[in-house]
């Protein structure tokens, strides 16, 4: 039973940040695409803005790995 809970916890640790990252990137990406249509020179800034929420899922991944292997 413990193994199931460990797997479930690891899935939650990566799944929830992944959904959050996807939601944040969809919003930023849509706004970024709109900005780029008017000001193509902002491409660098838009890449940075879109990339920022990715840290969440990476942190989630690290936690999931620690739950699965580190525990």
């Amino acid at each position, binding site marked *: 039973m413990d193994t199931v809970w460990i797997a479930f916890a690891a899935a939650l640790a990566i799944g929830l940040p992944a959904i959050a990252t996807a939601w944040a990137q969809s919003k930023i990406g849509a706004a970024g695409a709109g900005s780029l249509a008017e000001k193509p020179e902002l491409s660098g800034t838009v890449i940075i803005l879109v990339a920022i929420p990715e840290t969440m899922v990476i*942190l989630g991944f*690290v936690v999931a*790995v620690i739950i699965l292997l580190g525990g």
Partner: protein
Amino acid sequence: MSKVEIVGPRQLLGETLSLVRQEGDLHIEPSAVGFVDDIHKQEVHSLLPDEKALFEKIFLEEFESKLHNLFACLPPAMIRESYLSPRPIIDTVSRTLDNHLAMCRSLCDKRDAIQHDLLELSGYKSFLSSVSTLLDKIQLTPDLDYIGITLKDEKSVDILRNNLNCLADASCELFTMPAEDGAMVGLIAATKNISQTIRSLLSQKQMPEFKFPESLQTMTFIAKVEYLQKKIQESEKALQTVEAELEKFTHRWGPMYQAAHAWVREQLSIIQVSAFSFETAMCFFIYGWMPAEKVTSLSTSLQRNFAGSVVLEEIEIRTEDLDRVPVFLQNPQYFKPFENFTRLLPLPSYTSFDPTPFIGLFFPLFFGLILGDAGYGLIVLLLSSLSTRLARKNKLFMDALSILKVCSLYAIIFGLLYGEFLGNFGHNVLGIKPLLIDRQKNIIPMLYFAMAVGLAHVTLGLTMGFVSALRRHTKKEALVKLLNIIFIFLIVALIITFIGFFPELMTRPLIISILLLCPFLLFSGGLLAPLELLKNIGNIISYARIMAIGLTSVLLANVANQLSGLTGDIILGLIVGGIIHLISIIIGVFSSSIHSLRLHYVEFFDKFIELGGRKYRPFSSNQKKQNQTGISDSESKQQEKLYERPSQSS
């Protein structure tokens, strides 16, 4: 970069600007701020154009507009360079231009009218060509009426044939043949008494008779066909004549007008730039910036051309000038393609660093660390090498391929270190063993390694930020950066102690050191300093993506191998494996590039790069830019986005 001023007698301003444009290295400063001392501010003022200069400007603008109109009329053709210098003969050229413009306009109007006619007649061309072939085949008699029709296909021909009752008693005849546009052209020859009945039948069956222009209604069918054919031939001949005349004119007069156009553009740009010059009662002043290594060359040219009347002087760059110094990129050949990544961001300030060498060093390294497959690396290297010939004309594509080649080499190296060749194919089939680490089985050590890479990269960024702050004489900022580095190392040491790599005895001194340094961090960086520290630690953890994305890449490659094995057939297995590996390569290359780039833009650059630099825009002719760079005008405009490292220019 050097701060310079050019001084000379007022009457030599035009010639001096012409020489400066020819040399093409001086970025002219429109403002005198930072160039003129407060004591002399009253004496030096912006150069105001006199009446003669204004008239000259109006004349040149009108002249340029006329030249544009003339060139719009002329056909595009390769023309030789002019042997004449336009300057001494500009008045004559100006007078002939009016006559030539009127003549070319008339020819152009004529050409447009003929082209319009031909466009209208083009609708009849296909029908006329087919129907004239049919008319040639039959014997024409004045007793018969001829009706032309266009039919969709063979099926329509059959329907028409079935409905024409006159065919039975031979009072009419139907001839058909396929037209150039794919439709069928029909010709009905009928006796005059039944021709009207046939027309009504065609109308009922929605197969209307072919319509000729309204103006030809009174003519017979054959006369209409002959008239239109003759008109098309005449129009085509007339068009050829007009185009030949325009081409002849272009070859004869084009070189001279092109030279005149270049001269007018030069004069207009000089007039425009002279507004950025300054004057006293006797002298003119031009202020600006130029690469340090070019100063001697321009100074010598001025000395040679004006016999010492015009002088270039280098001025000391003061601290308050640093924000105004224009910047451009100047990197060794290896780093040039990586400048494309730097250009996605705004220009860094003069006191900051050019990030290109750092991208050039770390981007391929991170790419290799993430992709890390010798097979994928080889395929990417092969594809990028083969594509080089296709990409010769596109500079951006060439740069992308150069970057891809370097990255694929790193992917091969790390692939050998990880023992990966198309995932586990190399291990299972070829017997390749990891030289360093098997990242599929050693997830936690790889995680530590990725974070160690992050620690090194972020610390390097903070060190560069510390140096940059010292250069700008912002000691407080430098102290914050230094304290951040110390804090990060103390926290990392503490974590390592907790894990058990360092003796437990070290825990207490490390905690005491952190607590002792906290007030310093708060005093130097304010209340936001702890947040900045947390952000830096988060940045280091973010490098875990190197291991995470690398792991997904190798797992996808293994899935491709497993699925191809499950097919149980060599050919099908090769196809399935090939497709999935191809998808894996595309995803691998894309995600490795995006994440490596992100680690630079978000985690690394904000530690030391200060954005907001001014673009270096030298006053020069486009021709010179093209000669220097060997690229097109549009690309030379992109090249203006370059900036150089302060260490090389100051």
